[in-house]
């Protein structure tokens, strides 16, 4: 009898922990969807890869002519906007639009917090759509795709896996590769695509190669308590791949806290969140000349 009570108590504790985790992931705009913890909540990463590649092929390659070797990159992540609160993302976009130097902007995922907010995000971003004239690039985060939101992300922004480069006339500058890690893995097809792309592009004389994605690679301190990483197998493989092909920077978000790690000569940088009402909100600008000079900018207080 005592044994059964112990098992019962343990089971209740486990179920309660899982329930608390789920509840912490939702807000007014969502419905509790436990299915996502145990099975794909929409298209899997291999399907998203196929759809992204189809879009990329139809759109054609993106080559941004910066008309100078120096240009500005604006980077933010984890804005988690809702229809009610998107002050920081508004501010980021305003700063970016006011920049007079040659520029591009990158959002590292978790654009929205929960479902029914993607159109709002689109209206703030204004010129998303990943055509060759655009200079704002997105990677999907887990919040952008769960609750079956990949369909709407895809309708508005087209793709989650792509590459583009910057040039000054005929001179190649920097190669940017966007990876979809929104469900914690690259999957088989995206991994093969990445290997082939790096093998090909690393021979083309780019000044540097920059990879950006949502999920961060390392778990180094308590600030990362609530965010998950890639599996260890994938961490071994990707970090070695980046080193092998001379990737110099890997930018990611997801953990809402700044982090910098250098491993095998690759600089892994995780950004603070852009989410409103969160401590330590900041975005990053990068002066991309022959050196990369980072600046972190705090969002203004209320």
């Amino acid at each position: 009898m005592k044994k059964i009570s112990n098992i019962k108590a343990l089971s209740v504790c486990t179920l309660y922990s899982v329930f608390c985790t789920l509840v912490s992931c939702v807000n007014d705009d969502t419905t509790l969807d436990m299915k996502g913890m145990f099975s794909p909540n929409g298209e899997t990463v291999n399907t998203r890869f196929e759809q992204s590649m189809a879009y990329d092929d139809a759109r054609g390659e993106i080559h941004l002519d910066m008309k100078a070797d120096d240009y500005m990159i604006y980077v933010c992540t984890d804005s988690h906007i809702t229809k009610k609160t998107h002050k920081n993302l508004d501010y980021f976009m305003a700063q970016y639009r006011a920049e007079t130097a040659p520029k591009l902007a990158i959002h590292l995922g978790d654009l929205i917090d929960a479902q029914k907010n993607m159109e709002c995000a689109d209206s703030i971003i204004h010129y998303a759509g990943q055509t060759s004239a655009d200079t704002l690039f997105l990677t999907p985060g887990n919040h952008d795709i769960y609750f079956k939101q990949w369909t709407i992300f895809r309708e508005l922004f087209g793709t989650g896996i792509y590459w583009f480069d910057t040039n000054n006339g005929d001179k190649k500058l920097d190669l940017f590769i966007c990876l979809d890690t929104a469900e914690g893995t690259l999957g088989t097809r995206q991994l093969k695509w990445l290997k082939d792309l790096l093998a090909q592009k690393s021979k083309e004389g780019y000044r540097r190669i920059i990879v950006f994605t949502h999920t961060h690679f390392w778990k180094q301190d308590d600030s990362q308590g609530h965010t998950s990483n890639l599996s260890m197998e994938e961490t071994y493989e990707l970090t070695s791949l980046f080193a092998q092909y001379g990737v110099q920077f890997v930018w990611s978000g997801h953990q809402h806290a700044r982090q910098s790690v250098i491993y095998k000569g690759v600089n892994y940088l995780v950004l603070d969140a852009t989410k409103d009402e969160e401590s330590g909100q900041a975005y990053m600008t990068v002066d991309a000349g022959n050196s990369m000079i980072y600046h972190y900018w705090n969002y203004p207080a209320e």
Partner: protein
Amino acid sequence: MKKYLYTVICILCSVALFAGNPGFGDRRYTISGAVEYGYNKTWLHHANFDIQSLMPINPYFEMEAKLQFSTANVHSGALQLRPKFELPVGELFIETDLYFRAVTRNQLTDYTASIGVGYRMDYVSVLVGSYSRILDDWNRDWHTTDNYVVEPFNLLYRLEVFCRPQNNNWNLSFVFTDIDDYQMERMWQPLFAIKAYYDVAEHWRLNFGVQCKPTGMFHLNATFYGANLRAGFGYRF
């Protein structure tokens, strides 16, 4: 605080090593071997070959050594030290684990050291603790620090529920954990396993296991990442 904690652990380990009263369950010197079929989205299809040795030094202390060779070109080893203390119901144990994974395919080594506190009853075993990891590149230049990464704190957990008492001649168990014999995953990367054994003779035991690793569970978009099927036998002295 850490210093005191380590001192207490060392004392407990030393006491356990030299104590001599009967302990919990039927633990005997065992050598076992197993073959595994494995698949994951990074290494794809591969086979593993496992060798394990369980060494109960006395009823209060046991050691376990493990080796795994894989056709994925990743080879692992682990040494576990397990002091244990009998309680009126069940058994309290401390588990320290030194773990080594030579990832030859990626030219790096994954070192892990863990400590956990567990409690084991007839039908349930629970372990909670923490571990630290160093990922170390083989192409090492001692004048730079960018060839290794330290992850100082990770939570480890293991919950195993058995269908039969643990000293039965057969058993089936369900496991929810982030560690197993040859890998230590980060805390939000759980592993699910079903394990079984059957004592075919006094000294011979058959072992079976299935393990599934999903990703994205806590991205609320879980998907299948990998699985292992394990079958082997053990000789119990």
